[in-house]
């Protein structure tokens, strides 16, 4: 009994009423627990902590607990690892994969060493490289194809196991659950990678592979594994069943690979594979970059991948939050950071571009033709970069508009109340709160800040380059139109989302209903553009002005000949321009054979008359209202119309009273007071008891429960 009293003294401070003490006292008849626990634990209260005396890991644990305490004490991680390492499935899978890897490597070594017979042995370094490549490929296959199967089950298993409710009613917030699941899944992968180190050392023995190559490859594999694991965890959180999670993981992974491993693959190719494989072209290209550019080549992809990782993490966390949880603020902050990072990288690439750096500084006292050509090439290159920057900014802002304005408008009561407490200047923070209206304000402010900033930088850098021969519109004009069009288009998409959200009242479907028209508006005109004639200005029904792709083309490029008239809405046709040009080419009376009209093709190009005619033709070809101007007007008018419809005008951009939760449910028909014993009458039929089955992967809050 005294032991029991000692143990209960260690009841957590939050135990409040000390019920556990009573519990222990009340169960005096129950068999005493093994002495090992009570005695040791009883002492733990006054004596040094168990960890310090070696009971739970000793000094090592104490030392490690300082920097890695959050990992060592992560309950999810510990539970997952304990369970996994005791499962036969994990042991069998790991042993099989290692055996397979070893077998393939041994076959590769055997084949290469036997190649050429005993008198003509291949270069050992070549064998080493080949074995290393084979190893890398196997490891990548295992990482990308096998381990996601483990990861994508981690949360769905909780659901199918019916342990999910137990888990989320603990004090563990959603982000700690996802973190634990991610760490556990990553540890499986890491275990395999660590176990293959002795195998890769075989390649090291042959030579041709440096430790830094191995380290870089392992780093890349680790980063890839982390991203794939994050994607699988996201799939696991998004799906209600393991089968769906597996399908989503393996189907969604391929486009995901394209997004992710484009930058990562390029980085690895240039930094690791090309030098190893002796790819001289790549090596030379890399050498041509300055140190700053090389740094950007690493910082850019790594930063991008970090953002992708955090995004997947946030999405997985959001899926585990209840409907009343705030699922928007983290994403919006991430979006802002991503925009800032993207702009910084874009500016850095434009400033440090290897074709432009130092060109101006190397200006000779008397400009030579060669130097002028270099300057022109540099400006074109920078123009390309700025054009790309605009495209990326447009993609990001449109994606943001779709995501944030597609949110459901009805705020959970808790969030609505918090939002309502924002007063004065703090009200501007409402743009980070959930809800389609706040999303609209958020994306509007971001657009109005980002697009002019990019425009000003572009105008400063691109200048007013007027290189008609290049086929590009003068820089200033192109940038100005891009800016205007981008603002109009993003605001239109945002207003469309805000318009649809209260109608559809479902985040995913709302976003799909925004995306479908946009995709249609992009593709349909392109189809016409491909099959239609370029000789005449476009018709209204061609709808070129709706397609962002054609508007981009129209804003940045100019016609180079009289028959490129399709990106104008008004003005002469190509045929009319040709007639006008031919008229100017007609020789004066008396020149040539009498009574015979000479063909314009007989004229030489350096003939002044020809030059005049061609210039006039080009001037006419570039006359009229271009598609991008019409598009800007159309989208601006649509955005204004939708804004008026939505009731969101300038005054409301600052903030409006939050929309509270769903209105109070209609009161039931008068029913007997409690304990009166009368059964409800037929009027309360609406309150049927058997709830309709909600989809298995719906968030907990959306599922009715049969009680």
């Amino acid at each position, binding site marked *: 009994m005294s032991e*029991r009293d*000692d*143990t*209960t003294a*260690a*009841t*957590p401070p*939050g*135990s409040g*009423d000390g*019920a*556990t003490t009573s*519990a222990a006292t*009340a*169960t005096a008849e*129950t*068999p*005493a*627990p093994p002495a090992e626990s009570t005695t040791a*634990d009883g002492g*733990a*209260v006054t004596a040094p*902590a*168990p960890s310090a005396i070696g009971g739970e890991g000793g000094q090592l644990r104490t030392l490690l607990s300082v920097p890695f305490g959050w990992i060592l004490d992560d*309950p999810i991680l510990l*539970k997952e690892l*304990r*369970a996994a390492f005791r*499962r036969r499935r994990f042991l069998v899978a790991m042993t099989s994969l290692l055996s397979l890897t070893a077998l393939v490597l041994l076959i590769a070594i055997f084949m290469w060493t036997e190649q050429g017979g005993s008198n003509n042995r291949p270069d050992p370094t070549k064998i080493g490289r080949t074995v290393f490549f084979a190893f890398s490929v196997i490891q990548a296959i295992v990482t990308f194809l096998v381990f996601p199967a483990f990861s994508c089950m981690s949360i769905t298993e909780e659901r199918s*196991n*019916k*342990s999910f*409710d*137990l*888990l989320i*009613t603990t*004090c563990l917030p959603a982000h700690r659950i996802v973190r634990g699941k991610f760490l556990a899944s990553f540890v499986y992968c890491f275990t395999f990678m660590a176990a293959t180190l002795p195998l890769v050392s075989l390649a090291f023995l042959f030579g041709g592979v440096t430790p830094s190559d191995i380290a870089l490859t392992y780093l890349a594999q680790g980063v890839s594994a982390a991203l794939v694991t994050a994607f699988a965890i996201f799939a696991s959180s998004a799906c209600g069943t393991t089968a769906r999670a597996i399908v989503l993981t393996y189907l969604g992974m391929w486009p995901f690979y394209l997004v992710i491993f484009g930058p990562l693959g390029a980085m690895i190719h240039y930094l690791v594979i090309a030098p190893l494989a002796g790819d001289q072209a790549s090596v030379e290209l890399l050498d041509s970059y300055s140190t700053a550019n090389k740094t950007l080549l690493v910082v850019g992809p790594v930063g991008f991948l970090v953002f992708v990782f955090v995004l997947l993490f946030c999405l997985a966390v959001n899926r585990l939050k209840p*409907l*009343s949880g705030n699922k928007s603020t983290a994403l919006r902050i991430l979006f802002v950071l991503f925009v800032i990072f993207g702009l910084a990288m874009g500016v850095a690439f434009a400033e440090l571009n290897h074709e432009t750096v130092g060109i101006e500084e190397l200006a000779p006292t008397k400009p030579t033709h060669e130097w002028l050509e270099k300057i022109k090439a540099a400006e074109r290159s920078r123009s390309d970069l700025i054009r790309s920057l605009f495209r990326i900014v447009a993609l990001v802002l449109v994606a943001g508009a779709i995501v944030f304005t597609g949110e459901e408008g009805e705020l959970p*009561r808790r969030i609505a109340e918090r939002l309502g407490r924002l007063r004065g200047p703090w009200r501007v923070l409402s743009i980070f709160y959930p809800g389609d209206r706040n999303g609209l304000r958020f994306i509007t402010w971001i657009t109005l800040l980002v697009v002019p900033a990019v425009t000003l930088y572009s105008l400063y850098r691109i200048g007013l380059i007027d290189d008609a021969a290049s086929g590009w519109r003068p820089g200033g004009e192109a940038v100005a139109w891009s800016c205007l069009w981008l603002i109009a288009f993003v605001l239109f998409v945002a207003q469309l989302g805000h318009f649809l959200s209260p109608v559809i009242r479902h985040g995913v479907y709302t976003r799909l209903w925004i995306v479908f028209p946009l995709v249609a508006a992009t593709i349909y005109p392109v189809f016409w553009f491909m099959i239609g004639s370029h000789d005449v200005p476009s018709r209204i029904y061609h709808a070129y002005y709706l397609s962002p792709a054609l508007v981009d083309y129209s804003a940045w490029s100019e016609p180079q000949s009289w028959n490129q008239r399709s990106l104008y809405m008004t003005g002469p046709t190509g045929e009319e321009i040709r007639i006008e040009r031919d008229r100017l080419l007609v020789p004066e009376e008396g020149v040539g054979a009498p009574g015979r009209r000479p063909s314009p093709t007989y004229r030489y190009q350096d003939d002044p008359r020809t030059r005049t005619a061609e210039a006039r033709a080009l001037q006419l070809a570039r006359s009229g209202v271009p598609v991008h101007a019409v598009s800007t007007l159309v989208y601006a008018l649509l955005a204004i119309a939708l804004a008026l419809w939505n009731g969101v005008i300038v005054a409301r951009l600052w903030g409006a009273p939050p929309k509270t939760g*769903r209105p109070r*449910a209609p*009161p039931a028909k008068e029913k007997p007071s*409690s*304990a*009166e*014993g009368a*059964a409800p009458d037929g009027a309360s039929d609406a*309150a*049927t*008891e*058997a*709830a309709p089955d*909600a989809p298995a992967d719906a968030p*907990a*809050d959306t599922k*009715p*429960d*049969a*009680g």
Partner: protein
Amino acid sequence: MIHVQHLTKDYEGFIAVRDVTFDVSEGDIFGFIGPNGAGKTTTIRMLATLIEPTDGAATIGGLSVIDDPDAVRRTIGYMPDYYGVYDGITVEEYLDFFAAAYDIPRRQRRPTIGDVMDLCDLGNLRHKLVEGLSKGMKQRLCLAKTLVHDPKVLILDEPAAGLDPRARIELRALLKELSSMGKTILISSHILTELSDICNTVGIIERGEILATGLVTEISNKLSERSETRGVKIVVLANAAEAEAILTGEGEVVAVHREGRELHVAYQGDDKTVPRLVRRLVMGEIDVCGVTEEREDLETIFMKVTTGQVA
């Protein structure tokens, strides 16, 4: 301790719980009863902060389940109707996991786990793998997990479902013991015998609406007051058949059912009717040994209050 006011859950037009209001005092065992699909689990899940009510309010220990769900989770111990246990870990590790999940400091976990294992009689199973436990033991384990952070309020959804009679009796004893320790318990079930012994207050819910709440005796009294037909048990020393004949002839008596020396009399009348009936028996030279007003038990109340309609 638990205050529920006008709680409503609307699933896009389908109202699973409508305007539910009840209170549970500190230390009470509140039986939440109703047929399958009545809205018990939805109400309980709202109290357990798993879903947010569409309307209304609920507080547990003064904390709002809507505004302060994290604090509520520390206050309550929730045991769902269906739950799974984790494979590959032992009983002690299972409880350690939940203790860590409730942020109990590492050095306090072992003694706490020891206590709850003692309380739930799991001490001998400490090193057993969880998946190897019987259903009853898993139920005890889940209850132990529910107690590991020493909550003031226990919310138990059908805790005895699927248990054999012995395990049910043990569970009842355990709940009584927890109640004696000052825990407030909200327990749902549709097996009324399981609740009738341990609950001091009940709430009857059907089709998402609370039909009656309060002490079992209070509800019974109110039902009796409202009903036109009342019951009384009269025990006679002998001549029960003759007594039955006398009573049957009385105009206020609706029906008489004889069981040995006991006569169960259904009558329509007021409080003066019973003395009058007794007087008639005495005048008929029948020796009356005892008279007891017949009250409904929980099952009878439940049957009277609910209609048995399902959606």
